[in-house]
């Protein structure tokens, strides 16, 4: 269907609703907790419609291709952005932040704009991808990535709050949210790496080859491992809680940066052309 100059597809529908969600969530934040309550609820509703279109997009590609749509870069980006929303729904149910939808909506719009330029052909699975381990690998990684994305948003919000808002209770709570998200995502990140290693061993006969993709997935893992250990370590030192949280939230943003680099930006590495991994 065509609406004026716009072509109505699940893809375009999803990105449009995510865009409006971002605006609504931002308005809710600016209006304040009491006055903005209805706008925040509206942002949830808009996100739900966007998410439904998003799910429809993935589902129709699954049916058309006959296999879970994980293989091309387009599908990977669409699935990554979908898992951010899935984790958001669960996390918002627990933490009730109200403002997280703004970050999620904005991220969705950016990822969709990036995906709009990518090849959308649904190809049959390449022989190398025909493995049960691949599915576990992808699902574990996507939930982990989604969780770490939310942790990164919480870390960004932490900086905003610690500068603008002086309420130590809210700052402390936010730091706690970041920690709980990382603590949930870290085992999944590990499972992602380990199942990837098992898959590589079954396909190429080696579980670890220091390929750029593998190395960078280890780097992202190390950043979060350092975060978890530093959190424990700094508590035993004389570092003030403010400085401790300042440092730790930086680590989370760094970690998510490393994830984005691993996932999407490796092609800019001088060593990437020799990598075995596709979509680069």
């Amino acid at each position, binding site marked *: 269907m065509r609406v004026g100059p716009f072509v109505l597809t699940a893809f375009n529908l999803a990105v449009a609703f995510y865009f409006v969600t971002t605006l609504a969530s931002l308005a809710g934040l600016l209006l304040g907790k009491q006055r903005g309550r209805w706008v925040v609820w509206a942002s949830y509703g808009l996100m739900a419609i966007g998410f439904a279109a998003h799910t429809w997009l993935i589902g129709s590609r699954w049916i058309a291709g006959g296999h879970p749509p994980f293989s091309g870069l387009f599908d990977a980006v669409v699935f990554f952005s979908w898992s951010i929303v899935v984790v958001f729904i669960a996390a918002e149910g627990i933490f009730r932040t109200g403002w997280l939808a703004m970050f999620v909506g904005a991220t969705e719009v950016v990822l969709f704009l990036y995906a709009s330029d990518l090849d959308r052909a*649904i190809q049959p699975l390449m022989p190398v991808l025909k493995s049960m381990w691949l599915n576990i690998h992808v699902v574990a990684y996507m939930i982990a990535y989604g969780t770490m994305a939310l942790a990164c948003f919480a870390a960004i919000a932490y900086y905003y709050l610690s500068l603008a808002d002086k309420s130590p209770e809210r700052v402390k709570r936010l730091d706690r949210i970041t920690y709980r998200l990382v603590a949930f995502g870290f085992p999944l990140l590990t499972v992602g790496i380990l199942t990837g290693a098992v898959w590589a061993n079954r396909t190429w006969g080696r579980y670890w080859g*220091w390929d750029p993709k593998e190395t960078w997935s280890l780097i992202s893992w190390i950043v979060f491992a350092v975060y978890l250990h530093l959190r424990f370590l700094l508590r035993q030192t004389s570092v003030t809680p403010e400085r401790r949280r300042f440092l730790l939230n930086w680590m989370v943003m760094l970690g998510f940066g490393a994830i984005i680099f691993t996932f999407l930006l490796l092609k800019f590495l001088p060593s990437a052309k020799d990598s075995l991994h596709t979509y680069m």
Partner: protein
Amino acid sequence: LGSAILSFFRSDHFLVRWLTSVKLTVILLVLIGLACIVGTLIPQANMVGASPDVLFRMYTDWYGLIFHRIFNALSLYHLFSSWWFSVLLILLTINMVFCSLNRWRWRWRQLGFQLTHLSIIFLLVGVVIGLNRSEGMLQVFEGDSSNTMILGWNPRVPNSPAEAREIAEEMVSQNGMTTATLPFTIHLDDFRVARHKQPLDRIRFQAARRTEGGQVVESRIVSFNIEHQKYFWRPAGEPWTIEVLATSPVMRATMEVVESGDPSSAPAIEVSVLARGTESRRWLMTERQKRLPLLPDLTLEYQAAGDDAAWKRLLAQDDLATTGAPDQVAVALGDGTVNLPVRIGEEQAVPGTDLTVTVLRLLPDFRVGEGRRFFSASQERNNPAIEVRVKSGARVETQWLFARMPDFNPPLQIGDQTISLRFLEGDPQTPHYVRIVDGSTSGKRQLQYYMDGRLLKSQPVETGEAMALPDGTEIRIDRWIEHASMARRQEPDPTAVAARLRIRDLRTGEEDETVLRSGASEQRGQLFFMVTREFPIEQFISDVEVLEDGREVLKKRIQMNDPLRYGGYTLYQSSYDSEAGDASRYTVLSVKRDPGVLFIYIGFSILTVGLVIVFYVNPFLRKRKRTNGEVEEEEL
């Protein structure tokens, strides 16, 4: 004893305190992380896989000679196998073990922590056992066997052009690569690339993203499956919508041999040749296509005997006088030379020695492709070359010999013997030669099989009857036409498709339709679009037999993600002749034996269970305790 060990890990010695500190963990993790970043910013020598002089030129171009030498001294080009990186990993392992034992207490709540941190012991054991793993590549030709795998080779990076030559000479003295012998032999029956039956039809859009002086510098390509394109599409930033209305087959003209009824026309036969698992069908007409070089070593000839005298003369011919000398391999050993005929795949003994010579393959037009892959550019004898395997006891050497460049190959050194090999090119007559004689007037047909110019077999043939040659090739006459002529026929081309597209200009509202055939492209403004049809690869299949002492012990179909396991080794489908594509006549299997993997997998499982307990089970239990009014405990 247990408590004595534990008290050691809890002792106040500064070294123990240092090794049990979390501070050390964080420092080591940060250092390993930084090293990993460096290792991906500097392309690693084993990943680049270039020759020593190329490596030297590349690295000095990038970093300059001084930094190159510093980097090389710090083993930054082999960072992940460098001693200092290993030291970091070993220190981290020791640190984790010390941390675990230092905090060891018989409490449930400790379980997750201990499992997580002690799993690294299994990983270390796995890696250490894996240090003497064997891995290599096994290249096998169809119908041939091999037990010699080529080992991976990780050359050191030279500091000067002179050193580059030195390393290259080391390479040459090892004939390019080092090999190892497997305790069993792999025989390849057939290799093939299986493709999906269902074609993948796509419409591809290519839009200029950046142009400079009218030239497209950068473009983006987006493609859609036509099958799924039920809606309009507007390429980002382009004022068009495009809609696929329908697809239709593309007709192609084929030439067909038909009965003309004209008594002056010569007869023709349609012949099927089944060789090495592939069947090909060809028309042979006595007037046009009389002789066909069907395979590199087989020629098919069709002759019509116009009268009885010719029929008798042709049938009586028991050797092909046209043949010159066959292709030969000259083996010079000490002061004697032995000439052996070129028989592909046959292991021939050199009389008076313990040597055997096997010609593995013959390329009529030898070329080197990407990644040191050898292929024949055509069937013409422009640069004939053979690959020869020389065996003496357990020692095996392979070498390429070039007929027109006899001095190209250095003599081979096997044990204390020096052997010079030459490829003596004969008359390009193929060793196998089949002639079908048609006694047009009598209606009789006779098949004659010559090997190396001598008649081996002569028998009458009927249409539809298959005849097997001694090398396993089967020949069958499918049809016979007495008075043949060529006719043109239209039929749908399964490799092509056409799509009818409707394009709408959003600025003016104008619509127009166009039919685009696959392979052709059309341009609107800055936008190119084309329709493509391909049959995507479904699987790479190697049908192999495992031989022990020449006897078959196992048959297996090796596919991607479905390796062969035998005798502690695992053989994975790895590569093939990508220049030849689907017609590849060899497969490359990657061979691994790594008993350490078991420990790695145990470590993986323990690590996963440990993390699940630490991050999912423990917080859940703590939460329950907290609601029961108990004190919150410290994390981790």
